[in-house]
């Protein structure tokens, strides 16, 4: 992949991620309104991957909200993965290593967060 083309591709990945995230959040907010859920209602639904699929299947607002928030948080990681493949295709080993380290740092954050 040529320099410039990689940037454009990665840019498209980020843009698509932002649009999908915002769309999912908007669906979740519409669900909140329909279900008369206020933003300050407590307790808020905790993040739980197993519950997420159940909530999505039953069209609960929490499912869409968490999926949207996950999409938001993971979009930069997807950008890094896209960059990694682009650098690999271009034979840029140093940048491949950089992308791997960035991904490792993000994974470590998730692991430390989940482990706490």
């Amino acid at each position, binding site marked *: 992949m040529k320099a410039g083309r990689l940037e454009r591709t990665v840019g498209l990945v980020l843009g698509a991620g932002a649009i999908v995230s915002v769309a999912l959040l908007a669906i979740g907010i519409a669900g909140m309104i329909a279900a008369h859920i206020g933003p300050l209602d407590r307790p808020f639904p905790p993040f739980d991957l197993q519950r997420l699929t159940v909530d999505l299947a039953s069209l609960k607002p929490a499912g869409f909200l968490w999926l949207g928030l996950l999409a938001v*948080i993971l979009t*930069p990681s997807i950008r890094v993965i896209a960059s990694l493949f682009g650098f690999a295709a271009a034979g840029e080993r140093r940048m491949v290593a950089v992308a791997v380290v960035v991904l490792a740092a993000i994974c470590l954050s998730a692991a430390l967060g989940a482990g706490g």
Partner: protein
Amino acid sequence: MAELLLLICGGVVAGAFGALLGLGGGVLIVPLLTLGFGLPLREAVGASLVCVIVTSSAAASVYLQRDVANLRLGMTLEMFTAIAAMAGGLVAFLVPDRLLAVMFAALLMYVALTMVRARDARDNRDAGGAPNGRDSGHTSGRPNGDSSGEVSPEAAERAERPSGGAEPAGSGGLMASLSGPGYRVRNLGRGVLGSLLAGVVSALFGVGGGIVKVPVMNLIMGVPIRVATATSNLMIGVTASAGALIYLFRGGIDPYVAAPTALGVFAGASLASRLSDRVDLGILRLLFVAVLVITAAQMALRGFG
């Protein structure tokens, strides 16, 4: 319903302010949620990180497609911002809420002072007869390199190109591979230190950290302001997501609050990029400084009170 609308509107205002003035919404979202809606500081920071990622992804997408952001430099530095954000995220859960509030107040005062100094520097430059064909506000008071980096693409497009400090690209090696057309990256070690600081600041306070990254890249590393702003914006996504993952798994993100706020911020930032030509940024900047000072005082009171 009224609370939901208020939250979305608050997000719109924070996003618009941030985009118009070259700041992410973070510095306004955290006070909005804590002082305005009574949320615990950590939940406000978690929501703010989500907002920062959304706006970063949208803006960086444009920057990359316009070939403004330096992907290689950004990814190299974000190795360090991400690691530091991880550490900052962990520390945030150990620091007492009151201390965090006082630290946030100090950050707000720093941002306010930076903006005042930016204005003074611009005024001095104008008084000195420097060429200034454009509305001075359009450089958004980024005299020494846009104090934030989280700007709308349109605003960045107008940002002035640097002259001093940038060296011509040429030689091989790591620095050359990180350099771009018309400039050569230097002082990578100091850039790494700045990136570490930016990562901690981002995760502790729910901001993008551009207030550290852009000046470091521009003044220390010789990256043109326009490229530094765009590259910082690109890095913010990874930096904030490393911090946000800690908050996510530790129950620091409330989806009922984070989602509407993020939606509002996204809408506000998008709106601002279309309004930026019609707004007097000088007046807006003064207003923003006043808001920052008042908010800092309130946050400090919360911390000490």
